[in-house]
């Protein structure tokens, strides 16, 4: 199957189907950017986690996936943005097993492990922006 080239991906997240769309578009982008299967799946899984959190906690938001360069490094960045309730204690949210939804509590800490760089900007009432980057080896 031939795929049209994807330069960057911006998906509004409002439903489960959007989560799947963001994931598969991000996957294509990473594939085209020369990532191997394992890394591609890691990036796709990270997108799933962040998109699902948007849906679950903020109800809507967006995922932007694009290629990034820094010096001689080249990679893919995933930005998850929402205007939801925000995360009151980012340190706590990043602990394995912490969940306000009685879930596994692995989404954020796990995504941090899946990616090379990970940053959360969030405060109660002012939404959440999470940026995660994976560099190509």
């Amino acid at each position: 199957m031939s795929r049209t080239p994807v330069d960057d991906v911006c998906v509004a997240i409002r439903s489960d189907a959007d989560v799947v769309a963001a994931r598969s578009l991000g996957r294509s982008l990473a594939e085209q950017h020369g990532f191997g299967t394992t890394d591609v799946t890691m990036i796709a899984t990270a997108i799933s986690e962040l998109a699902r959190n948007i849906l679950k906690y903020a109800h809507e938001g967006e995922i932007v996936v694009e290629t990034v360069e820094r010096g001689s490094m080249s990679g893919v960045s995933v930005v998850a943005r929402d205007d939801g309730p925000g995360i009151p204690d980012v340190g706590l949210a990043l602990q394995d097993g912490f969940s306000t939804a009685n879930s596994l509590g692995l989404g954020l800490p796990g995504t941090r492990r899946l990616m090379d760089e990970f940053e959360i900007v969030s405060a109660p009432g002012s939404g959440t922006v999470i940026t995660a980057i994976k560099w190509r080896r």
Partner: protein
Amino acid sequence: MAATRQRVHADDLADSIGLGSEELAMRKRFLEFDDDDVQRLEGMYGLTHEHVDAVIEAFYEHLLSFPETTSFFRDPRLLEHVKGRQKNYFIRLTQGDYDHDYVTDRLRLGSIHERIGLPVRSFLGMYAFYLRQIAALLVQEHPGDPEHAFQKFHSLTKLLFFDIGLGVDMYIHQRERTIAVQQDAIRELSTPVLTIRDRLLVLPIIGILDTSRAQQLTEELLRSIRESRAQVVILDVTGVPAVDSAVANHLLQTVEASRLMGAQVIVTGLSASVAQALVTLGVDLTKLNAVGDLQGGIEVANGIMRYQVVAIDDTIPEVVDAGPDPEAG
């Protein structure tokens, strides 16, 4: 479930696609469509009335010169009917009162066009044609006063763009409804629980595994486990497009519930890279008894159930005629 499209009742068409009076007012503001425009359009009633037949005839002649569109209007009666509607449509542009009823009428037109499969480009082409025709008429009507002609044209442009917005919304709305109906249908395809042999079940999961689906599936599985007193259940997730911690969580819960019912669950179909991603996320895959593929899963099940698969040895001749059955007496 009914897979057919529901017919939207004409009266609440606008409301049903979220076009309340506030939204409509906002659209008009965005197009800077105001009372002056209404007045100018009303002032063009004579013009449209006089030329409606010529314009519509010219339009269909134009439309039918394209083989792609002739196929929509093979039936001459349909063609006459549609022309009649278009004439009403055309005159209605200059009859003022561009509110709820006007909008409903426009939406209905959009919905008819979508239903007969008229491509959006033809739909847009129709508006472009009207604009060209009316521009020519206005220039004729106001010789030496291009500014006046232009103002009228301007007002008409706004109204037609308003209509186009409504028509396109209707197209999108209908498609979305079709997609939603299909999604429901896919969702409702109950996941089959297959009995491979006595006390061994296989559940192939296809599609997105969200909370409600996972619950439905677990219920179904637990019922099958009880009915067949299953000892081993294989959950095959090859067909699940997005496996992440949420899906892993659903699977873990299904595994746990099955265990409480006395059945051991084996999860198959996680590719190596997905398994690795899940482990990196922090999911304990040992709890899922993850085995690469369905075949491997069945082998593991055989081990648990103490079955052995042995190839038939050709050197031992098959018993063709066992003679009279000693039991039969």
